[in-house]
């Protein structure tokens, strides 16, 4: 039950979280998976099949873009990097503002309910 609820919440904010990480630096999918695991407090341990569709959605919306970048070292193969577009950075700021308002609202409601139930 708890897990299902956490899953639903995660689904709602995943686009914003991924966009945020890409706004921080140009990166590739696997690095994003690692970052989400390190910084996600156990909520964002994603698999490829969950992360990449988010990236495709963001890319199709013009919020991020992908490009092949040559890697350091002669033998290293080029890798597909994702970077945020200007539109993506603006979208992230909007998303974050909505998130702050939303979470404050939820907190308010829950605080009221807890006060009443006492």
């Amino acid at each position: 039950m708890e897990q299902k609820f956490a899953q639903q919440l995660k689904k709602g904010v995943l686009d914003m979280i991924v966009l945020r990480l890409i706004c921080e630096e140009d990166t590739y999918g696997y690095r994003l998976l690692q970052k989400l695991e390190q910084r996600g407090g156990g909520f964002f341990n994603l698999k490829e099949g969950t992360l990449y569709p988010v990236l495709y959605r963001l890319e199709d919306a013009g919020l991020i873009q992908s490009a092949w970048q040559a890697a350091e070292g002669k033998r290293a193969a080029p890798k597909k990097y994702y970077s945020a577009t200007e539109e993506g950075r603006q979208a992230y700021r909007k998303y974050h503002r909505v998130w702050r308002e939303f979470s404050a609202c939820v907190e308010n409601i829950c605080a009221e309910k807890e006060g009443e139930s006492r």
Partner: protein
Amino acid sequence: MMTEEQKKIKKYVTDIERALHVPSMTKERINHDLGTEIQLLKEQGLTADEIIARMGKPEEIAERFNEELGKSGMQRGQKVFYLLVGILALLAALLAACFEQRHGRLFDSAGVMVIGGADGPTSIFIAGRISSIMPFVFASLALALCMASQFLRSLKGRRDDREFLLAERILDILAAAVSAAGLWLGMKPFVTEQNVSADTAALLANGAAAAVLIVALFLLARTFVKK
């Protein structure tokens, strides 16, 4: 020359691709991203077996993509559609065949001989009728076979089942053969310059048969392109 490690990775990536039910453009995207990931893990010194163990089974990876990219949600509707159209096509083929057999003309290519005493125009009319029904029977049968093959493909969680793959291939080959036979029968009156224009019903039936055959061939082509 490909090393054993490279062969394992290639097979792994191919298995994922096979299990993906997404448009080819999306498949290419996934391929590039997973390719980058595998490359990174290789550069970190992981062996092919370690990479595969870390990333998970091909069908599991593909299933998540399929779920996220919305194909699985469509599967129930698709299954019903394939079943319904398949059954209808089969019924149409059977009814048409029964109707013709009852009149004793289904496989009688020398239909004109049957009514030996008939005059000229009647002979042509009968010959036209025979050639018009046969393509329809074949077209319906081809469509039913295509639908059966598509239905098998739409079933979830059976991708590594060899029997299913074999059944799909047999159905595809049968559908292709029946389609080809139907097309030939449909075209034959025009190629051999028989007077089919005398019978409007024959032309209509030929048109319907051609349309059904085009659908059947389209489905077959789509299946092979997907592979």
